[in-house]
């Protein structure tokens, strides 16, 4: 029994063109990170469908994946980001709900946990409200950093924007977030 040599992400997608079954491995490798990103933005319930759709869309488009243009992970995040954009209202609703949690403790196990975790830092409601207040473009950049942990270079590729623009959007968003979190803001 010799273990199959570890095949890299891009080679796996390429191999799946002729052998579609291999795309299941693409799923297994990347599901956790894509889920973290989508569920973070839309909540666990809406994420279930959007994450599944992300991989279905990627599977159908696998022939167009070009390793020369970037790695598999940013490619998947690009697809996921486009799908998330179709649920903008759900996303905003989620942030508003999180913002409300500090003021009036809510039912619901998970949200309670979140409330405890973040309000321990004394900043959750303002942070959630600040996120809801960002523009879509700023939010894409912020969440690709915070949840997807992509580099600026990768984010530029995901969003199809110049490298420098990633930095400037991020700076602008950071300023807004910090202003919302300033102690004088209270909350």
């Amino acid at each position, binding site marked *: 029994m010799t273990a199959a040599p570890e095949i890299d992400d891009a080679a796996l997608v390429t191999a799946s063109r002729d052998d*579609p*079954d291999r*795309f*299941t*491995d693409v*799923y*297994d490798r990347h*599901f*956790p990170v894509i*889920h*973290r990103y989508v*569920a*973070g*933005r839309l*909540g*666990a319930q809406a*994420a*279930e469908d959007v*994450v*599944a*759709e992300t*991989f*279905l*869309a990627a*599977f*159908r488009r696998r*022939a167009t994946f070009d390793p020369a243009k970037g790695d598999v992970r940013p490619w998947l995040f690009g697809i996921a980001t486009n799908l998330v954009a179709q649920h903008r209202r759900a996303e905003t609703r989620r942030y508003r709900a*999180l913002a409300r949690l500090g003021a009036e403790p809510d039912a619901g196990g*998970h949200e309670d946990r*979140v409330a405890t*975790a*973040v309000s321990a*830092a004394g*900043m*959750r409601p303002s*942070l*959630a409200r600040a*996120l809801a207040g960002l523009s879509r473009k700023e939010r894409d950049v*912020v*969440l690709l*950093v*915070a*949840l997807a942990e992509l580099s600026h270079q990768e984010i530029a590729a995901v969003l199809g924007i110049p490298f420098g623009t990633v930095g400037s959007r991020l700076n602008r968003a*950071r300023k807004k*977030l*910090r202003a919302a*979190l300033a102690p004088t803001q209270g909350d």
Partner: protein
Amino acid sequence: MDEMKAIAEMLNEPPTQKAADEGRRRLRREIANPSAGRRARARFGWPFKAGLGIVAVGAAAAVAVSVIGSGTRPSESGQAGAPQGEIDLGRQAVLVAAENAAKQETGKYFFANHVSGQSYVVPAGTGAYAIDGARSATFVAAGLEPGAKVTYYESFPGPRTWTPADEAAWKKAGSPSKIKVWSSDKWLTFDMAKKAPWKLDGVNTQKEWLGRYTLEELQNLPTDPEKLAEEAFDPATTEAEMLRSRGLDVPAHLKTEEFVAAEKIRMVGWRLSDLPVPPKVRSALMKALMAEPGVQAVGETTDPLGRKGVALTSGSRTTTVTGEFGTPPGQRGAYGSRMELVFDKATGNALAMQNVLTKPGGPYKDREPGFVIDYTAIRDMGWSDTEPAPPRDAS
């Protein structure tokens, strides 16, 4: 404080096993059975859940009287599969449809007009009734010249009651316009008054539309049923084999004859309903499916749009609805159903893929056998030499 870290912490939603499994299951289904186009795919994958049936009465009657036979290769002899020298009327009827399918004319465009729905039994103090809800329709108009575009339209026709008896029970309940139903793991509310007209959904390339095939490959599919069976029923594309190839255990129910037959019915259903498969190949696909173990021929049935047809069906499978996902107690329990692919006998066109109740129970305990639990019906399909567009009247 690093705000990025705080955001990540605040938004953390640990993935559930259920979400991971569900996504993988959908992907595997897509791999096994790539359907057409972006939106179309989500919808055309023949339904796994349940829908109500149409003219449940007609269908029930048909189940009761239909002559069932499973077959050997039809190419050997028209009557080879008939038991004990009797003529298998179901097989004969499907063979007639298959011969007719081979005679269709083709053209420069291909079009298909599908509608899918799901049945819900609505409890009411004055008597339960069944509605056909979550309906969605897709119209695809595909140019077949190299590089031609494929245009999708969609509409959401809104819910309807199934039979005159259901309509009467709905009226007795006060003709409610908003109807709340339990759907797998959540409550949905349907608006009986809601209808939506066709709207343009988008344009795809031929490649996106056809999935694993090219137009040329479709043209060159074998017209011999046995050769075609090798291509269409490639074991590697079955759900069980996909699990096995990944070193996972294959649950026993995926290996039953009923499951495997239903899987093959879906594979053929997709090819016959979504793809411009040449007429002679359509005919061969029907014969190939009829020869598979566990596939039975039905001489007379009714589809969800009330059309009479002949069918190929799987054996009955049992589905047990538990309280695991919060299903109300009154809807839990086991029921039996089978997968039917219905054809028009005169043209050989596929009319519908339907999951039909065989043994009442669980959510369908007060329904009759023949009740359609869920379906995709092909309202119209074929070739033309002018660019096809959705019908103007109905959505």
